[in-house]
């Protein structure tokens, strides 16, 4: 496949002119992205502040977001300052996620290794799986109230499923000849598990964990929106009640940034744990 770099300028220009945009697969051109973001920022400023085409009551001005950021950081909002709210949300996400990983991954391994375990566990799993995690929120509130337990319970449901499915698939799609090879070399069943199956399934396990973490975060925000005492979801819903667009936008940005950070951290962990897979 000759879709490599065609960078010498004449042919490059001709290729692009001919609509072969894909020929220039020399990688992303980040400056274009930066320019877009800058352009949007300017557009935002022009629409809300310079011309007032968009009412600040419906869409915040840059200055509103800034003052909301200051308020949340310095004086606090919706019952706490920025750090407290972040701490509350991330703590719950991590707790829920860890519980889910600690149950989902082993169960997935078990189901992947043993047909019998799979047959036994699958029915319950099939019954529960179509129910979206967010639909557990009302039940969780009935069962556990508005505190931490309800949140962890819901996050567990959200994060458990991807962790389990991917672990299971990782084990099942493992190259059978690898296991045979290990057996031929005299590995015990236990060694096969720890030396072949787990490392072999690790890339997919991490895929599952990444999905789990993202599901945890989405679900937590939803749960906090429905009812909580602290947390970013709580900030969002109070800001909505106060009709405070600047704070809404700031809290949304926080949700996005924290989500991205968590996924990034897990990515680092993955690079460390699965050094042989470079993506």
């Amino acid at each position, binding site marked *: 496949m*000759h879709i490599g*770099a*065609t960078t*010498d300028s*004449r*042919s490059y220009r*001709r*290729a692009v002119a*001919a609509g072969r945009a894909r020929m220039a697969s020399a990688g992303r051109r980040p400056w274009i992205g930066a320019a877009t973001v800058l352009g949007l920022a300017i557009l935002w400023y022009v629409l809300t502040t310079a011309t007032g085409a968009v009412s600040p009551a419906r869409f915040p001005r840059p200055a509103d977001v800034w003052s909301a950021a200051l308020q949340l950081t310095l004086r606090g909002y919706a019952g706490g300052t920025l750090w407290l709210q972040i701490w509350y949300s991330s703590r719950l996400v991590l707790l829920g996620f860890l519980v889910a990983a600690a149950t989902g991954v082993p169960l997935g391994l078990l189901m992947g290794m043993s047909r019998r375990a799979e047959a036994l566990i699958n029915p319950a799993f099939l019954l529960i799986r179509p129910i979206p995690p967010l639909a557990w929120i009302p039940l969780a509130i009935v069962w556990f109230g508005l505190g931490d337990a309800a949140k962890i319970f819901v996050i567990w449901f959200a994060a458990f499923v991807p962790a389990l499915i991917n672990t299971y698939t990782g084990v099942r799609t493992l190259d059978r000849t690898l296991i045979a090879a290990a057996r031929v070399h005299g590995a015990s069943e236990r060694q096969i598990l720890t030396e072949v199956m787990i490392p072999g399934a690790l890339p997919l396990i991490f895929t599952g964990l990444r999905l789990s973490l993202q599901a945890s975060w989405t679900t937590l925000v939803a749960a906090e929106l429905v009812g909580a005492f602290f947390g970013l979801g709580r900030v969002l819903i109070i800001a909505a009640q106060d009709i405070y667009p600047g704070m809404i936008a700031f809290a949304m940005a926080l949700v996005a940034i924290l989500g991205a950070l968590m996924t990034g951290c897990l990515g680092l962990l993955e690079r460390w744990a699965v050094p042989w897979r470079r993506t």
Partner: protein
Amino acid sequence: MGRSMSQISFQSVSRVFRRGSEEILAVADVSLEVADREFVAIVGPSGCGKTTLLRMAAGLDFPSSGSVLVGAREVAEPGPDRAVVFQQFALFPWKTVRENIGFGLKCRGVPAAQRNAAVDRYIEMMGLQGHENAYPHQLSGGMQQRVAIARSYALEPEVLLMDEPFGALDAQTRIEMQEELIRLARVNPRTVLFITHAVEEAVYLADRVAVMTRRPGRLAEIIDVAPVRRAEAWEERPIEEVMDLGSFTHLRTRIWKMLRDEREAKAEAPRVTPLQRRKAGP
């Protein structure tokens, strides 16, 4: 070969690829003329730039210096006057045999009735009757390549560019396809640029065989087969018989030797700057 007569003309064509910070001279100063209705085969070591040459004639790639002319016009983009047959067939998996063959005509805006007639003609010519409505994956490799060739012929192009069209076929099918192509070339002569690894195939099919050096690819020599072919009436004979003829084996062996010398040159003199290594031109 008069310049006014030539259909495809490479004029001092070079092509440099950039891979990271490295510059790769894939084709170095190639000049080659293919006359109207002539069948020219290009052979050469792997990676010597054969595909690159063909892609430049097709308008899918462009020279870094020099120019490529087809029908006296500089090639600027791909077009239906130069049909390409790819090694990987490149049939649309979501179209039936009939739709694949008719695609080029449809692009050209040929009305359905006329298009169907043309498609039928090529289906018959390539022996694809009964498979008109099959999808490519339901065909054997040989049949798929027949569809690809029919798709190109259906355009009635001035020029056919074929990049190792039989490379993916088994030996038996390959021979059948070679005979098929000779038959087709008699009924329906076209200007053909044909790339292959198989020296015998080149000698059997081509009027002239251009032998390329290893990278950076230049023309080592061009061997005229047409006079022998005509004198011994190869086209009237079955392929096995032709391949046994003294003249045939002589030509084949000569080209083999050239290619082997190329390989050995590689082993002996690994790093010579490209420009000093000018070999005999055509």
